[in-house]
């Protein structure tokens, strides 16, 4: 496929790797913000090919992983008890809420449907006026305009049986929260290319300056990631801390104006709970008053009890880069992809799941033997 295949060229990848090895003189800790980047780093085996001095810290960039438990519980309540048809992106289905996941609710008879696009959920609502449809609108800035436009489409079609359960999160406030942490040990950041396709990267200039950290807007294919890493290490080795754009083939400085407008038209900024991290001020999106009739929380006013992540899960510290999955006593024992205790083990993007798939069995079989 054009614009994918050429960024997987093995020879050029080797040249990038040689250059990264050549210029790296000191230990650097780089955070890739986005779960899609984590996925690509692991899938292509890039981390193992980098100099040992470079450590990757996997950031909070999986909207599924950071969706708080009580929201999942609310989604489960809506389809199990309130009788709505819940449409969701596939990723969300396996994530456990307080007690169970949407997948187990579906197995027990709830009407849960996987959709590829929110427009499919709108279409379903239009074709089934007898059903109450709720779309679980999860996502970062990349997904927010699509979710917003689904509401606009529903409004134009005057659908009364469509609502969204908004679970939107914003990247820059989360990054600021992580960088502010006194224990933060991140030297450089690969910003998420697709979030920036929508939002641009102007928001990162003050962050790079305030925390003296290089930020490189980076794509998702192997060559993109390698170039992004090289650009970050070059800055670090020279003592620079500026914002650079590796992903210029789709990312413009101000992002996509129409997409940003769609977000601004439909959503307002709100405080937001991040699973494993806690409340981050002004890091979420809620529907504006004008669209209140499409807000599932207002349409079905139930208060779900707040549930803690659990005393044992250290996902928050892992996402902040303070700990590695191996530091967790549950990792690979009580907490596995088939029986996850925390969100980072659930999504294939989650740090713990990525570690488990790549190193998990080997690490534990040897340790278990010695125990």
């Amino acid at each position: 496929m054009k614009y994918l295949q050429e960024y997987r060229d093995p020879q050029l990848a080797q040249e990038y790797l040689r250059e990264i090895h050549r210029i790296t003189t000191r230990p650097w800790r780089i955070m890739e913000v986005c779960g899609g980047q984590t996925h690509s780093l692991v899938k292509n085996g890039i981390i193992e090919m980098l100099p040992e001095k470079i450590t990757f810290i996997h950031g909070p960039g999986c909207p599924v992983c950071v969706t708080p438990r009580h929201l999942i519980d609310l989604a489960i309540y809506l389809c199990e008890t309130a009788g709505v048809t819940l449409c969701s992106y596939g990723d969300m289905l396996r994530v456990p809420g307080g007690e169970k996941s949407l997948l187990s609710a579906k197995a027990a008879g709830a009407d849960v449907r996987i959709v590829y696009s929110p427009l499919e959920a709108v279409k379903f609502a239009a074709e089934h006026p007898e059903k109450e449809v709720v779309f679980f609108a999860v996502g970062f800035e990349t997904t927010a305009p699509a979710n917003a436009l689904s509401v606009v489409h529903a409004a134009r079609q005057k659908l009364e049986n469509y609502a969204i359960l908004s679970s939107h999160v914003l990247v820059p406030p989360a990054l600021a929260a992580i960088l502010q942490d006194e224990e933060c040990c991140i030297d450089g950041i690969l910003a998420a290319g697709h979030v920036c396709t929508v939002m641009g990267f102007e928001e990162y200039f003050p962050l790079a300056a305030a925390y003296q950290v290089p930020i490189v807007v980076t794509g998702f294919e192997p060559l993109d990631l390698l170039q992004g890493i090289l650009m970050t290490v070059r800055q670090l080795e020279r003592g620079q801390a500026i914002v650079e754009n590796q992903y210029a083939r789709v990312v413009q400085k101000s992002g996509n104006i129409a997409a940003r407008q769609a977000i601004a038209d439909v959503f307002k900024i709100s405080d937001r709970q991040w699973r494993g991290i806690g409340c981050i001020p002004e890091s979420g999106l809620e529907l504006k008053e004008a669209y209140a009739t499409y807000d599932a929380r207002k349409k079905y006013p139930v208060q779900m009890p707040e549930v803690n992540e659990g005393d044992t899960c250290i996902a928050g510290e892992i996402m902040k880069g303070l700990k590695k999955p191996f530091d967790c006593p549950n990792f690979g024992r009580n907490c596995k992809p088939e029986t996850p205790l925390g969100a980072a083990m659930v999504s294939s993007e989650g740090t713990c799941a990525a570690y488990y798939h790549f190193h998990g069995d080997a690490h534990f079989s040897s340790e278990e033997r010695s125990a």
Partner: protein
Amino acid sequence: MCLAIPGKVEEINMIMDGTVRMAEVNFGGILKTVSLEMLPEAVVGDYVLVHVGFAIGIVDPAEAERVFGYLAEIGELEELAPGEEEK
């Protein structure tokens, strides 16, 4: 986060009484109907980045080449200012 894949716009159609532009986008042989609401400037033949059924960006063909020339680019820079790495 945010799986988005580039595909080629093959056809553009208007829906909802001519208010919404939708495209047939080709991804290596499969066709999906994609909203162009966020890309009013997109035309047939453009490669667009598609996320959850919406095109969110147009691929710039010139910028797309830069990743292939970057190593040579920084090599030339270093020849102009040798020893910068040691700073």
